């Protein structure tokens, strides 16, 4: 290589220079490794810096943009009203820094490095997706960086406070959603069979575990379970297999809206119209039910814990109106009707509540404030949903409501 002359020389120099420039900043600057002593990286007299990583491109791009857009909108509205008043008497504005990871866990890890080492964020908020969060979790806990209100429904982010004290979920787990569906079937107290189509990963496993728990000891049994992967173009063959069981109910634990639509329609073409339970992240009226022409389906159920802006029953709700107007103003490219936007908005309100509730302005103080969060829902949360951050084995939000599609709206079932 040395004998290749000038080109090599210049290339070496360019690469070395660009690498040096790309990083900037040296080792040991605030926040690169933190212990309880380095009280507040990411905090100045008037700003607090929060970071995140979302899929802003690729197949989940719209979902990432929706969640990010909702958070940005809420933070903008809080900043416009002056900021967050904190325990030390200072009022701070939120600076929200985020990067795209395309749902690639390796990119999420790199974004983590950027956020912590270059941007010196105070905490990670609403990092998106189970696999990216799993990739980040080890590093975040080793570095003692809060990884809060992760945008994923897997219980393991909140289950083990000893192993992962700096990580915390927000929304009710997918397992609890499965339990709710199972219980609603069991409550009918007659022999029934249910077929399940689930994602071939932990997300799907926990949905299945949930419904098994919900029907335990009842007259309901699982007829068959089929699996799909998120990149599958169709689930027709899985639906055909399940249709052969002629089960009374079908649990579509499907996180991908186009697959939800095509799967349910395929069941109809096979002449099979069971009671369908739609996973909460793919049951939006405007994104799934209407485009999929599912409104004529006899028995459609889902579960939810937030108010959907595209549901006519919330047309006059103040929180929903605020969400819509704030997102229109701050994030016009984000779609408020995508469920991730509603979850993102709700989590943003919880973060601001936690920031207000910090007794000391430090990373540990934030975790303590989150564990102390208690409320009876309100805002974008459905009536009856409660928040309790002290439960050491669960996500802060408790309760999820089974809803039935009736007259163009998801009606909460008692």
């Amino acid at each position, binding site marked *: *290589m*040395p*004998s*290749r*002359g*000038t*080109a*090599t*020389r*210049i*290339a*070496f*120099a*360019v*690469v*070395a220079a*660009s*690498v*040096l420039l*790309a*990083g900037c*900043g*040296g*080792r040991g*600057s605030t926040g*690169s490794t933190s212990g309880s002593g380095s009280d507040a990286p990411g905090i100045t007299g008037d700003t607090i810096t929060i970071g995140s990583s979302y899929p*802003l*491109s690729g197949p989940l*791009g719209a979902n990432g943009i929706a969640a990010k857009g909702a958070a940005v909108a809420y933070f903008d509205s809080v900043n416009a009203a002056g900021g967050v008043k904190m325990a030390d008497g200072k009022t701070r504005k939120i600076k929200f820094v*985020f*990067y*795209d990871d*395309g*749902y*690639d*866990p*390796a*990119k999420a*890890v*790199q974004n983590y*490095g*950027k956020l*912590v*080492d*270059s941007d010196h964020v105070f905490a990670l908020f609403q990092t998106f997706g*189970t*696999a990216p969060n*799993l*990739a980040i979790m*080890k590093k975040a806990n080793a570095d003692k960086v809060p990884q809060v209100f992760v945008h994923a429904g897997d219980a393991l982010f909140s289950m083990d406070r000893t192993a992962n004290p700096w990580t915390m979920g927000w929304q009710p787990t997918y397992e609890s959603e499965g339990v709710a569906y199972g219980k609603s079937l069991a409550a009918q107290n007659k022999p029934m069979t249910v077929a399940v189509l689930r*994602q*071939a*990963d*932990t997300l799907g496993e926990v949905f299945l575990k949930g419904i098994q728990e919900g029907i335990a000891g009842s007259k309901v049994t699982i007829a068959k379970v089929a699996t799909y*992967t*998120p*990149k*599958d173009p169709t689930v027709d063959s899985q639906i055909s297999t399940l249709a052969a069981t002629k089960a009374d109910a079908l649990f579509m634990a499907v996180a991908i809206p186009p697959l939800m639509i095509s799967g349910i329609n395929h069941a109809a073409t096979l002449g099979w119209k069971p009671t369908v339970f739609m996973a909460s992240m793919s049951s939006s009226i405007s994104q799934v039910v209407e485009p999929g022409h599912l409104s004529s389906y006899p028995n459609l159920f889902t579960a939810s814990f937030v108010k959907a802006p595209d549901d006519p029953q919330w047309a006059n709700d103040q929180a929903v109106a605020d969400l819509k107007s704030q997102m229109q103003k701050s994030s016009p490219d984000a779609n408020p009707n995508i469920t991730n936007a509603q979850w993102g908005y709700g989590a943003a309100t919880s973060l601001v509540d936690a920031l207000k509730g910090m007794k000391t302005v430090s990373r540990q103080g934030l975790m303590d404030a989150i564990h102390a969060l208690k409320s009876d829902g309100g805002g974008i949360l459905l009536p009856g949903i409660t928040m309790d951050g002290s439960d050491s084995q669960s996500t802060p939000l408790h309760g999820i409501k089974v809803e039935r599609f009736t007259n163009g709206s998801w009606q909460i079932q008692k």
Partner: protein
Amino acid sequence: MTLQDTAMHPLQRAGATRVAGFVVAAVATVVLVLLPLWATPFMNLQISLIAAYAVAIRGLGVLTGHAGQVSLAQSAFFGVGAYSAAYAVDHGWPAAVGLLLAVVVASLAGVLIAIPAVRLRGFAFGILTLAVPVVGVPLANRLSGLTGGAQGKTAVSLPAPEWSGLADDQWHYYVVVAIAALIFLLVHNLLTGRLSRALDLLRANETVAAAMGVPVQRYKVMAFTISAACGGAAGWLYLVPVQFISPDSLQLTLSISLLVALVVGGVRSPTGAVVGAAFYVLLPNVTDKITPGRSYLFFGIVLLIVLLFFPQGVTGGLRSLAGRLSRRRSEPTTATE
């Protein structure tokens, strides 16, 4: 201008160039050795990634740049290497065993795919290599016992040893950069003499090469295997700092990006492989600050610019630039390269 007017005799000039080259290489080495002691963990992560991808790109260069066979399968070998490495970590095997496993398994996969593939030419060969990651990713998703499925696998290995006094990210940097440099040296030594000339002939015109008695299929398989072995090693190198692998990291877009990086850097140049890898890793840092999520758009734009103005890649472009500058200093008939 006469010969007597030039400052240096051409032979002296060549000698001076070589000395200057060694000096620059020495300086670069010193910089690389001292850098992680000063750089942030994020910078060390980035450089380790550049080293890992450079190995993958150099491997691809052997097949696509030297042998002239465009391949889209490199992400699959990268994945095989990374999963083999994760497997070794799971079973508590030493890191060196993991590296060996990654290289061996990827090479075997390479040979298996190469044997049918080399019967095809050009476009058809390319399509077959396209099928490898397209089939491989769903396979990785389904074989969850082996791969952890769509969730992926965490694989924490190579903690910094006590005696070094280094942080993990610094140790990973040294391990990855040193092994990458060794692999580059190995490839350099492989590509000498008969193999290199055969691949050049093969690239220029397969029919003529066969007519000249070059065992075309055998050399294609060889190039494919070297390429796959590099891909596998790159997967191991990648796992060291990132410590996580999942099918999401192995999409077809990675193969395409590696090809783009290869072309941008220079298809037959080892330096080009490093430049391409730096481009792939660092460009999103810059463009994400301007408009997040659009890095692929910028990859495309840079590729277009390179293809239009420097078809030999950045290193080729620099070389002709350097050549033109040197030529202006000497008489018209003396070439300086």
